[in-house]
């Protein structure tokens, strides 16, 4: 195995609540792959959407505080599973780099100034670029053969490209590569970076019904068994609100929406306590059972051909 990968780790607030399954499975998968995650001590909220809609300096200061803490740990890279946290951390770092005056202003709010030396990455980027798809595929014990997955990245993981600087902003493929390595059938899902409606679910639910409904509809029309996502908010809109969407659009989608880390854990043969599949609103059972059946049928056929 390659020299040990070690990162400062920023779980993000939702990881402690709504997306606990993402958080737990991320840690478990990294453990299985020998990646060391050092949680930033005393990390605080990145400000999410509300902070930067009110005040850019204040919003950047929230992120800069966490970056500064990571600097004090002596780390050179912070990784986070959540695209929203990722955006805030990256935007703050980017703007501080471009505008020294902005950095000064931000640092006036901080006890320990942020020097802005650490690199920020998503867990996904670290997995695909630092570890590589081969190392991930090697860890697979139970391939996800027969499982048809629509990979959905959400709209901010790769955009704006000049800040996020990762993968193709219109047609990202990092998660596709990982899922393919797990043995799943990755569908050509054209709405990979389309908006799910995000936090409009609170103010204008109808918007989310339309936007997330379209995502489910396309996945369904392609014959997907499940959707894989990398974003807590996307996952919530597609999974938790699936019943609302069905009611609003008079449809009957039953598509489980996994975090890609849950699927990795499944293929690695990790246990339920590391995956928290029971936290999904649309149960994963039927899709997984179908996959099981397909696998058994294939095995039987294999045995038969051997006999003959």
């Amino acid at each position, binding site marked *: 195995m390659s020299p040990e990968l070690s990162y400062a780790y920023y779980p993000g607030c939702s990881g402690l609540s709504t997306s606990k399954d993402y958080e737990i499975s991320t840690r478990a998968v990294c453990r299985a792959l020998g990646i060391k995650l050092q949680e930033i001590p005393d990390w605080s909220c990145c400000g999410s959407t509300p902070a930067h809609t009110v005040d850019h300096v204040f919003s950047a200061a929230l992120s800069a505080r966490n970056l500064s803490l990571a600097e004090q740990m002596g780390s050179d890279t912070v990784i986070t599973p959540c695209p929203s946290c990722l955006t805030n951390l990256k935007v703050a770092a980017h703007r501080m780099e471009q505008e020294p005056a902005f950095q000064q202003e931000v640092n006036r709010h901080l006890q320990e100034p942020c020097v802005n030396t650490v690199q920020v990455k998503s867990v996904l980027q670290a997995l695909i670029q630092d570890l590589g798809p081969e190392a991930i595929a090697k860890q697979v014990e139970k391939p996800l053969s027969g499982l048809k997955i629509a990979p959905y990245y959400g709209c901010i993981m790769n955009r704006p490209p000049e800040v996020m600087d990762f993968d193709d902003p*219109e047609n990202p493929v990092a998660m596709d590569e990982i899922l393919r390595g797990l043995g799943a059938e990755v569908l050509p899902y054209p709405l990979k970076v389309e908006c799910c409606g995000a936090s409009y679910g609170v103010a204008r639910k109808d918007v989310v019904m339309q936007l997330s409904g379209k995502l489910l509809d396309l996945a369904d029309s392609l014959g997907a068994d499940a959707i894989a996502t990398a974003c807590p908010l996307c996952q919530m809109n597609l999974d938790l609100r699936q019943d609302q969407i069905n009611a609003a659009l008079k449809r009957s989608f039953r598509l489980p929406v996994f975090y890609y880390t849950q699927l990795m854990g499944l293929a690695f043969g990790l246990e339920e306590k590391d995956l928290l599949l029971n936290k999904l609103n649309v149960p994963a059972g039927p899709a997984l059972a179908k996959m099981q059946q397909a696998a058994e049928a294939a095995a039987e056929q294999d045995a038969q051909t051997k006999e003959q």
Partner: protein
Amino acid sequence: MKIGVFVCHCGSNIAGTVDVAGVAQAAKNFPEVAFATDLLYSCSEPGQEAIVQAVQEHDLDGVVVAACTPRMHEPTFRRAVERAGLNRYMFEMANIREHCSWVGKDKDANTRKASDLVLQAVEKLRFDRPLQAKSFDINKRVLVVGGGVAGIQAALDCADGGLEVVLLEKTSTIGGKMAKLDKTFPTVDCSSCILGPKMVDVSMHPNITLYAYAELESVEGYVGNFEVSVKKKATYVDWDKCTGCGLCMEKCPSKKAYDAFNEGIAPTRAINIPFPQAIPKRAVIDPTYCRQFIKGKCGVCAKVCPTEAIDYEMQDSFVQEKVGAVITATGYDLFDYRKYGEYGGGRYPDVITSMQYERLLNASGPTGGHIQRPSDGREPKKVVFIQCVGSRDKSVDRPYCSGFCCMYTAKQTILTKDHIPDSQSYVFYMDIRAPGKMYDEFTRRAMEEYGAQYIRGRVSQVYPYKDSLIVRGVDTLLGSQVEIEADLVVLAVGAEASRGASELAEKLRISYDAYGFYMESHPKLRPVETNTAGVYLAGACQGSKDIPASVGQGSAAAAKVLALFSKDQLESDPQVALVSQARCVGCGKCVQTCPFGAIQLAEDRAGNPKAEVIETVCQGCGLCTVTCPQSAIQLQHFTDNQILAEVNALCQQAMEESFES
């Protein structure tokens, strides 16, 4: 020596920030200045006459004009002093506009600087000597590079004018992009019906030698006497024997070759004649697909060819041609439609380029002129056109308008309706640019008579959904989002400089812009000339343009060449290097330095080696003069003494002052 100084107002261009009368007054005290005055417009007829008169009245030996850049008017004033009876090299220009009045606002400082520049010119003029141009013979043959419609027009006009023409085409047939088009705007007449006869004329014309499947290897020489080496790429078919019967193509078992002529919408054979009207109509083997080359066995074409034309051992060959002028007509290439990931070009088979659509519309195309979707062959009912794909977009480094996409898109909507009467076309556009004769009427017709729906706005995304493509965009006039379920999406790709344009430019020593389009000598007044004498431009290689404009330029370039060749001799520029036999020690350093091979070693009468400049080859770059350890080689009109006189004029006073303090 009696020197005259003329200080130009250039209207208010110079006089606005320089006291021109003051400069003229100051000049009266400069060494050997016998006359000085200011002129309102020295380049105008009365301005030039005043110079001529002053020379004659005051018996002047040399003239300084302080005005604009010599790039523009040095030839004008040289002609004027010649009319006055002086040698044209007894003239200097001080640039007090671009170098002075336009760059500073402080009138006092400007006036001082202008005086200094005039002094500099006067000091140089004191060392100037009359130079005589020599005459040399012109080779009245012309090379045309590129056989698109622009190159074809230029070649035919030159040939009809009695010149011998060498026409060079990179691909195996002439015709360029126009040969691929179905109909042409704004008349919707058949492209091959109007181009075909011209192509035949090229092949029949006794004055035209055509090298197809050939490229320019190297160019040497200068206006009137270029020597070019042409690389004839191996076709693996002996074209002297090939009759173009096409039997080989029919029988070739390698059926998946890329068909460049059909823009890749259908495969072709490894041995190929691009289209029935090709000129020359000759077969070429593509070794990347030919089994004989890949696997070492097949030989089917060699067996079936009735004239035994196939030659798998063929190598590239070279021919030398001597010409007096070159017309560059290498056209353009298309923007890579995969660069916009959001449109899905290259990912979704039913998202195609406008040029691919031309091939689908064309009766001699792979679908016989029936519009069929590449994915399933179904006839599309709803076609969406997206304009400005790779035009007017800084984010893909293509900020310019390609100029013809608005027009050809309108044409394609009309043709779509003609082919499929129950179809509906939608066009996403930014602005409609239709400034030509009958052009706006044409786009209106597409909308009003043919019912094409024009939507002003950009498309954010195209994605497949079930059997169709969903096109999502914005209608900026309505201020709302639009979504269209389309059967086919056509991307109106813009024009780029043709591949290899910069390499060719370097061989021809012409300049090109940031995007690779060739630079004309003056954007308004010398649109088909380059800054290299004897090299001309025609068509889209100079900037994206449509067929009428390309043909116009083809004829214009031909007219320029015919005018150039209307004389039997040209005058060489005497501003070349000259060796002082007395000083030269024959070390040969200059011979090694000269990038043009213009210096050779010869022997003087005593048998000593001496450098010798071939005047017609020397470009006057001056590299040799700084190399020579003996200062024996000097560039005429830019000798060491002349340059030092200028330096002293500007620096002596300053140096003396600095020593005093």
